[in-house]
């Protein structure tokens, strides 16, 4: 009890300090509740960064190991081109991405640049979380609209009511085509000639080819085709999930729609040329194709790298068959965007990063060389990419699809996708043969319509329109 601090007093002081620290942490956490900071403020601070102060920005995305490696390479190139900027690259698994992003937004810590899928763009834009890139695009010659695939232009525009017009909220990070990949060796063995642009297939030609390709039993079974893209079947047949003008009426009970759905299911049920849903759960059509046990499979150009490395047979791509009723063929295309956060404190640097990753020639080149994607820049696609020796041999098919047959998936044009998820929740019953397409669509139409109505209501709530 002399001058030295007694144990009791020491512990008292420690307790007070901890409490004070806890309360101050509380204070800083609650102040991070802001929404869209005014863009003027962030531009002012980024003007300071443009003047040469070192700036740190965060970039969040998902991807396979190859994609992550490709992006690390591109970020390194960016940091060399912009020496005052350091990029903190955060990788998140794709199934956790939305959760993590929304939590970060809620905490006021949205990453400066992040992947934004087209499905979610409207939601994020309407809630003021995306930086309006229109001025940046207007003032910077980052891309020539004529040199970019038409389907990508206007993709990430939103005017507060509809997707496709208005301000730009994201830059396309890539474009993915979804052709049919086919096993050239199996085709040659069965004596099948692939379709060409002048001599396309229709559904009957496709079915004949699939029948010729199906052979064997048990472990050596080879199937002619994997599951057929429902989008291709429905749209090519002139049908729609939802009416194209107003996006408010569900049309899944139209005869053209149910005919398309039933045709897809009959590939397995009636003709036996596709695996059953159970077999596809056990071994996916994609993996079966890679093993050489499936003749034709719909897959995206994001798989080019995987097929190049892992397929021990020659493969190529072909366009989707036309419907015999309409002679049309349509298929969806994919794209993810790069968005800038509305609350970024380094808008200039963040926009530069987004533009660099999106359109820079070197980054495009790296992406196609690694088999990640095909170039978004048309001159590069028709030029050096076409001349390159990596597969597929028929690269022109990919360009044809993009120019002539690709359209945005219907569910990406509605404010949320719950109606689509509901439709898909039990299509397995049609593919199993438990219900006919007509019965299934009739049974589910009301619920899907209700969810679509709720999506429209939700948009009205968010946008006030």
């Amino acid at each position, binding site marked *: 009890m002399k001058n030295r601090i007694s144990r009791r007093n020491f512990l008292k002081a420690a307790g007070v300090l901890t409490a004070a620290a806890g309360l101050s942490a509380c204070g800083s956490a609650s102040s991070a509740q802001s929404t869209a900071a005014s863009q003027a403020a962030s531009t002012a601070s980024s003007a300071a960064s443009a003047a040469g102060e070192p700036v740190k920005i965060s970039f969040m995305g998902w991807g396979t190991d190859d994609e992550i490696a490709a992006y690390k390479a591109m970020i390194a190139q960016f940091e060399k081109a912009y020496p005052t900027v350091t990029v903190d690259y955060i990788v998140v698994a794709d199934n956790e991405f939305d959760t993590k992003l929304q939590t970060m937004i809620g905490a006021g810590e949205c990453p400066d640049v992040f992947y934004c899928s087209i499905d979610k763009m409207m939601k994020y834009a309407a809630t003021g979380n995306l930086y309006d890139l229109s001025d940046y695009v207007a003032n910077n010659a980052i891309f020539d609209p004529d040199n970019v695939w038409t389907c990508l232009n206007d993709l990430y525009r939103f005017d507060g009511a509809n997707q496709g017009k208005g301000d730009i909220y994201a830059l396309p990070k890539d474009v993915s085509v979804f052709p049919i990949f086919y096993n050239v060796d199996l085709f040659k063995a069965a004596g099948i000639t692939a379709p060409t642009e002048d001599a396309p297939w229709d559904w009957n030609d496709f079915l004949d080819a699939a029948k010729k390709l199906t052979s064997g039993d048990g472990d050596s079974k080879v199937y002619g085709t994997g599951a057929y893209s429902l989008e291709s079947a429905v749209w090519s047949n002139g049908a729609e999930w939802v009416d194209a003008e107003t996006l408010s009426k569900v049309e899944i009970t139209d005869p053209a729609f149910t005919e398309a759905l039933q045709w897809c299911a009959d590939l397995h049920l009636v003709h036996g040329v596709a695996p059953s849903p159970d077999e596809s*759960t056990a071994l996916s059509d994609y993996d079966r194709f890679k093993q050489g046990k499936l003749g034709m499979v719909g897959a995206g150009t994001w798989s080019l790298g995987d097929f190049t490395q892992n397929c021990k047979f020659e493969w190529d791509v072909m366009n989707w068959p036309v419907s015999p009723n309409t002679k049309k063929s349509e298929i969806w295309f994919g794209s993810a965007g790069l968005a800038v956060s509305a609350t970024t404190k380094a808008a200039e640097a963040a926009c530069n990063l987004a533009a660099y990753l999106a359109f820079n020639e070197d980054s495009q080149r790296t992406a196609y060389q690694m088999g990640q994607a095909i170039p978004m820049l048309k001159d590069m696609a028709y030029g050096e990419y076409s001349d390159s020796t990596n597969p597929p041999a028929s690269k022109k098919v990919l360009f044809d699809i993009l120019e002539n047959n690709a359209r945005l998936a219907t569910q990406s044009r509605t404010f949320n996708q719950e109606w689509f998820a509901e439709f898909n929740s039990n299509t397995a019953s049609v593919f199993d043969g438990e219900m006919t397409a007509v019965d299934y669509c009739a049974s589910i139409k009301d619920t899907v319509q209700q969810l679509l109505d709720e999506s429209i209501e939700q948009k009205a709530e968010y946008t006030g329109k």
Partner: protein
Amino acid sequence: MKKGNKLMRREGIAGLLFVTPQIVYFLLFFLLPLCICIYAAFTNWNILSVRHTLVGLRNFDKLFADPKFWKALKNTLYMLTPIPFYLLFALAFAYCCHKKILAEKAFRVVYYLPFISSIVSLVLIWKWLFNAQYGLVNNFLALFGIQGPNWLGDPVWTRRMIVLMISWKMIGIISIYYIAALKNVPISYYEAAQLDGASSWQQFRDITLPILTPTTFYLLVTGMIGSLQTFLEVQLFTPDGGRGYGVGTIVFYIWQKAFESSQMGYACACAGVFGLFIMLLTILQLTVSRKWVYEGE
């Protein structure tokens, strides 16, 4: 007298300061979010912006009218079914350890391993084990001529598989509780019973089991609360809740509504309702417990 009061007061203040960090933690990370959640349940908050409007009881109307919610509730209650089984199995195992019938240490490691393993790795392995065509489980059943079901594709069997996984995981930790509890049974009781000529089984039934009832009660309550919150297994095995939502549990439903549909206010309402439900179940268990739990001397 004065000196005594001063001492007591100083000790009181010291004690208060000791618990202050814990109280602050509780307030910040439990009470505050709870209040926000209750408030949000009456709004249409979407986590993407702070802007929200009060909508009264609309969220509650919606959730009681949603057939998916009731399906999820049914699936969640199904997750309670393994509790009696794994309690029994864990008790048997703990008893064998206690009586040194088994190679205790080796088995304890083997049984505890699933509990401390990462769920993601476990699910990955189980997905292959239970693969309908190529999995070890179905190939093993085929040896006996049994056609294995489609574990991952048929929601009925996916539910059973998840229940199996929960039981398998919990046996380890539950046995540890029971082993500890068994060690606490006073040996004098057994000695007295032996003197009176009681058989092993009678000793187990009339001494061990009743003395274990507080532990069993605790494990029942926490097991129930834990099982009702099954989420990760569902999300990892079936990204959409299974065909016809046959596997989705309530917490999975809440997560979907909160993060996939961005309806945070609605999700808070669901969470509140479900929290109340769990609380009611627990209170029920507490009241019934007076009838069968041994209170001690």
